[in-house]
C-alpha cells in the first residue's frame, strides 16, 4: 500500500508510510533522476519502492551488484548534473567508503544523497554500527531524522544542500526510522525533466590538495546548519537540566518527560544536523544549564562532539556535569554504547537525576508473576524456513565432511545462510564475518599446509554474495594456487533482504527481462572446475562434495534450488504426510532424526502416539525429509 501512497499527487494529504517509503517520497518530491543501491536491512525498501514506481515517473532505478558500484553510478549521474540517490545499510557504507572518501574530495554537481540505515541492536545485522563516525571521518555532512515525516523532509532537503555545497550528503536512518510507520503530510512532487550534461571541460578529480577545499566546504555547511529549522529546542528557555538528543531519542525523550511530568522543567535540544556540529546553536543551549544528558543511538557521537566543544569554550560557560553513554550514565540492557535507545532508558536516567520516580498508569505485574511465567517459556532461535534449500545444503556439507573424516573447516558468509553459524544450520560454520570474507579466509587457510594445517576447507557463499564480493577472492585464489572447495548456494534471488533480483535472476530492479550472468559461466571463464548439484538430491550432492574436496586446487560447486519462499509462491504445493504405522518412534534407532536432527519446523512430534508427524500449517512440501526418514514413514500424500 505504501507504494500507492508515495506516488499520490495530493499535497496536504496525510498518509501512513514507513520511514523507507517516506524517504522514497522525499526523493520524489526532490525530483530524483537516478537511484542505485545494493539491498540491506533496514534500508532496502527505499530503493525497493522507488523501483516499483519508477515507470510512473520515468526516472532510472537499479539494484547494483554492490554498494561501491551503486555509489559510483549515482556519482556519474551527479557529475552530469542530475539528482541521484544511493541507499545502503551501515555495512554497505564500508563497501562504498573508498569511493565516498575519494569523490568527496573532488565534489559533485547534481544533488547526491546517500541514505545509510544503521541497525542498532542488530535486528537484521551481524553487527551494530554508528555510521555518523564514518561520515565524519570522510568529512561528509550528516542529517539525522527523528520521525518518519522528518525522514522525508531531510532526504528532500539533502538534494538541495548537496547542490549548494557541491558535495555528497548522508541522511542517517536507523531501524526505528526505516521500519517504523508514521503519518506523513505529502508535499508537491517536483518535475523531473532535466538534460544530463557533462561537458568536456568539466573535471571531478581526487587529489590530496583538495582536503583544504573540503574543510572550507564543511565551514559553509556549518553556516547553513546554523540557521536550519532541523535544529530546535523544546520546553523552557532556561533549565538546569538539558537533554541533548539526536534521531530517535527525540520522541523517547519527549515521552519520558511527559510521563514524569517534567516537561516544564527540562529543556530538550534536538540537533538534526549532527555533523558538522552546529556549534553556535549548541553553545547557546549549553549556556546557563547545569546538567546535560545525551540521548542518542548507538554510540556517543553527539556527546563526544559537544564535550569537545565545551572543552574549547569552558571559560565562557559555567560548570556543567555531563551524563551520557561515554560517561556510562545512559545505558540499556547491553550496556552504555550498545543496543537500542528507548523511552525506558531515558525515563530511568531522568528519574534518577531529578529524584522523581515514575508511576505507570496501569498496575504492573509483580516480579514473581513475571519470573514464574518466564520460567515456562523456552527460547526461540532463528530457523531456516520450512523447505529452505540451505538446510539441505548444510546437511550435505556436514555429511560429506563427516565421511571425509579430516575435520574439514566450513567458512561462512553473509545472507540467510549465515544461519549456518546457528543451531538450525547444524552450527556448521567455523567463521562468519562480512560479504565475501569466506573465500578470502579460505584462500589464506588453504595456504597453510607448510605450517601443518592440513584440514580440508569449504567456503560457503550465497549467489548474490558471489557477484557482490566473492569473484576477486576467487581470482586471487586461482592465481595463488589456493586449495579449497567454494560452494555457491544459488537460490535465484537476494533472499534475506526481501527477494530482490541479482545478476543471475534474469530480471532487473524494475522487473524487465535482463541478461542472466551465469555463475557457472563466470567460474568456467576463470578456469575453475565447476559442478552444479541439487541439494534436495542430497545423496548425489554429498558424493559431489566429497569428490571435489579430494581433488587438488580451488573448485566450485553450485548447489542450486530456488528459495522456498519464492518457490511456494510460484508452484502448487504437494502435501507431505507421515504414515504413522511405519514410524517406529523411539524404537527406530534414528534418534527421532526428523525432529531432533533435521530440525525443519514442519517436522513435529506427536506426543500422544509417540511418533513423528507433519504440521500441515507449516510444511511447504519440499519433500526432502521423505528421503531422509530411515523407516520410509514420511511420504507424499497419495503414496500412503
Amino acid at each position, binding site marked *: *500500500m505504501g507504494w500507492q501512497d508515495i506516488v499520490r499527487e495530493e499535497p496536504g494529504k*496525510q498518509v*501512513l508510510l*514507513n520511514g523507507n517509503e517516506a524517504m522514497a517520497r522525499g526523493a520524489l518530491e526532490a525530483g530524483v533522476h537516478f537511484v542505485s543501491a545494493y539491498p540491506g*536491512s*533496514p534500508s532496502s525498501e527505499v530503493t525497493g519502492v522507488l523501483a516499483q514506481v519508477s515507470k510512473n515517473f520515468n526516472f532510472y532505478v537499479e539494484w547494483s551488484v554492490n554498494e561501491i558500484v551503486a555509489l559510483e553510478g549515482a556519482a556519474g549521474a551527479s557529475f552530469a548534473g542530475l539528482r541521484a540517490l544511493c541507499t545502503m545499510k551501515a555495512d554497505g557504507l564500508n563497501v562504498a567508503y573508498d569511493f565516498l572518501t575519494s569523490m568527496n574530495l573532488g565534489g559533485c554537481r547534481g544533488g547526491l544523497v546517500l541514505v545509510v540505515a544503521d*541497525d542498532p541492536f542488530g*535486528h*537484521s*545485522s551481524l553487527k551494530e554500527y554508528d555510521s555518523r563516525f564514518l561520515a565524519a571521518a570522510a568529512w561528509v555532512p550528516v542529517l539525522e531524522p527523528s520521525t*518518519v515525516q522528518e525522514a522525508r523532509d531531510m532526504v528532500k532537503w539533502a538534494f538541495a544542500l548537496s547542490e549548494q555545497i557541491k558535495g555528497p550528503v548522508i541522511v542517517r536512518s536507523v531501524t*526505528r526510522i526505516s*521500519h*517504523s*510507520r*508514521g*503519518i506523513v503530510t505529502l508535499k508537491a512532487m517536483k518535475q523531473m525533466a532535466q538534460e544530463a550534461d557533462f561537458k568536456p571541460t568539466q573535471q571531478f578529480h581526487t587529489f590530496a590538495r583538495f582536503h583544504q577545499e573540503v574543510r572550507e566546504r564543511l565551514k559553509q555547511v556549518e553556516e547553513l546548519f546554523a540557521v536550519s529549522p532541523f535544529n530546535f529546542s523544546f520546553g523552557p528557555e532556561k533549565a538546569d537540566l538539558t537533554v541533548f538528543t539526536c534521531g*530517535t531519542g527525540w*520522541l*523517547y525523550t*519527549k*515521552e519520558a518527560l*511527559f510521563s514524569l511530568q517534567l516537561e516544564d522543567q527540562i529543556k530538550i535540544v534536538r540537533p538534526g544536523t549532527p555533523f558538522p556540529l552546529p556549534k553556535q546553536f549548541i553553545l547557546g543551549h549549553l549556556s546557563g544549564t547545569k546538567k546535560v544528558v545525551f540521548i542518542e543511538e548507538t554510540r556517543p557521537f553527539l556527546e563526544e562532539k559537544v564535550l569537545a566543544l565545551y572543552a574549547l569554550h569552558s571559560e565562557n560557560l559555567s560548570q556543567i556535569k555531563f551524563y551520557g553513554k561515554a560517561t556510562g550514565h545512559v545505558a540499556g540492557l547491553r550496556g552504555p554504547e550498545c543496543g537500542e535507545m*528507548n*523511552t*525506558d532508558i531515558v*525515563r530511568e536516567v531522568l528519574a534518577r537525576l531529578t529524584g522523581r520516580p515514575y508511576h*505507570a*498508569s*496501569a*498496575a*504492573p*505485574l509483580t516480579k514473581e*508473576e513475571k519470573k*514464574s*511465567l*518466564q520460567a*515456562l*517459556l*523456552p*527460547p*526461540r*532461535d*532463528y*530457523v*531456516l*524456513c520450512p523447505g529452505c534449500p540451505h538446510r539441505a545444503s548444510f546437511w550435505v556439507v556436514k555429511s560429506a565432511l563427516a565421511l571425509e573424516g579430516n575435520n574439514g573447516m566450513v567458512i561462512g558468509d553473509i545472507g*540467510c545462510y*549465515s*544461519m549456518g553459524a546457528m*543451531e538450525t544450520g547444524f552450527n556448521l560454520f567455523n567463521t562468519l564475518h562480512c560479504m565475501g570474507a569466506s573465500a578470502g579466509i579460505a584462500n589464506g587457510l588453504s595456504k597453510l599446509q607448510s605450517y601443518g594445517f592440513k584440514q580440508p576447507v569449504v567456503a560457503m557463499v550465497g549467489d548474490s554474495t558471489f557477484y557482490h564480493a566473492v569473484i576477486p577472492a576467487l581470482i586471487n585464489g586461482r592465481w595463488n594456487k589456493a586449495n579449497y572447495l567454494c560452494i555457491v548456494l544459488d537460490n535465484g534471488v537476494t533472499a*534475506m*533482504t526481501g527477494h530482490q533480483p541479482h545478476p543471475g535472476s534474469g530480471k532487473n530492479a524494475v522487473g524487465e527481462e535482463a541478461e542472466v550472468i551465469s555463475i557457472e559461466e563466470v567460474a568456467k571463464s576463470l578456469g575453475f572446475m565447476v559442478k552444479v548439484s541439487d541439494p534436495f538430491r542430497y545423496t548425489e550432492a554429498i558424493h559431489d562434495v566429497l569428490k571435489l574436496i579430494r581433488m587438488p586446487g580451488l573448485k566450485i560447486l553450485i548447489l542450486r534450488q530456488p528459495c522456498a519462499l519464492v518457490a511456494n509462491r510460484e508452484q502448487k504445493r504437494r502435501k507431505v504426510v507421515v504414515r504413522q504405522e511405519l514410524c517406529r518412534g523411539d524404537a527406530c534407532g534414528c534418534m527421532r532424526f526428523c*525432529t*531432533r536432527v533435521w*530440525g525443519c*519446523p514442519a517436522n*513435529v512430534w506427536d506426543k500422544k502416539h509417540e511418533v513423528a508427524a507433519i504440521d*500441515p*500449517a507449516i510444511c511447504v512440501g519440499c519433500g526432502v525429509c521423505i528421503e531422509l526418514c530411515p523407516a520410509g514413514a514420511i511420504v507424499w500424500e497419495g503414496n500412503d
Partner: protein
Amino acid sequence: MQKETLLKEPVNLIITGVGGQGNILVSEIVAQTGCRQEWNVVVGESYGLSQRGGAVSSHVRLFQHQEYGPIIPIGEADVILGFEPLEAARQVVDYGHKNTCLIINSHPVYPIGVLRGKNKYPSLDLLFKKLREMVAEVLIIPATKLASQLGETVVQNVVMVGALAGSGCLPFRADTFIEVIKKVVPPKVRTLNEKAFYLGLEEAQKIKSLKSL
C-alpha cells in the same frame, strides 16, 4: 465519520508471532484502520533476519494529542495480539500489565530447541491458566484451525485481526477493518481474507458472550 475518543493516551498494541506468520501485514492493517478512524498512529516493526523463524513483534501506538516513539515502554502494552502462544506469553513478561487484554492463536509453532528435545514447550492449559491469573482478559482463538477451514492456514493472521475487532478491547470498527483489508490484500485473495476476518470476529464475539453469561 464520527471520531471516537481513545480510552487512554496512548493506546499500546503489540502484534507478535513467529517470523513468516504475517505480522507486518497485520500491523499495516491495524495502523491503517487507526488512521481511517482519525487517530494518530506510530508503528515499530522488526523484519529482516528476525523474519526467519525468530520471534517477531510490531508495536502499534494510537494517540490523539502528543506524539510518541515507535517502541512501547516496558509494562505498558494494553492489548497483545499473539499469533503463537509462546510468543504472546513472552510479550506479557516484558510488556504486560494487570489490565492487558490478550488475544492468542492457540496453535503452537515449536522452537527448534523444543523440536530438538533440548527445551520443553509448556502445556497450553497451564500456560493459559497462568496468563488468566495475571492479566484482565485472555481470549483463546483457534485461528489456525479456523483458517484451515477456509483451506489456507496462512490467513490465520487475518482471523486474528477479526478476533481483535470482535474482542471489543479497542474502539475499532469492523467495517473500517474491512475497507482496509480490501485495500491492502491482492484482489484475488480479498474474499478469502474477508471470510477469515469474519470467522475471527464471530469467534471472539462468541467467547465474549459465553463469558458474560
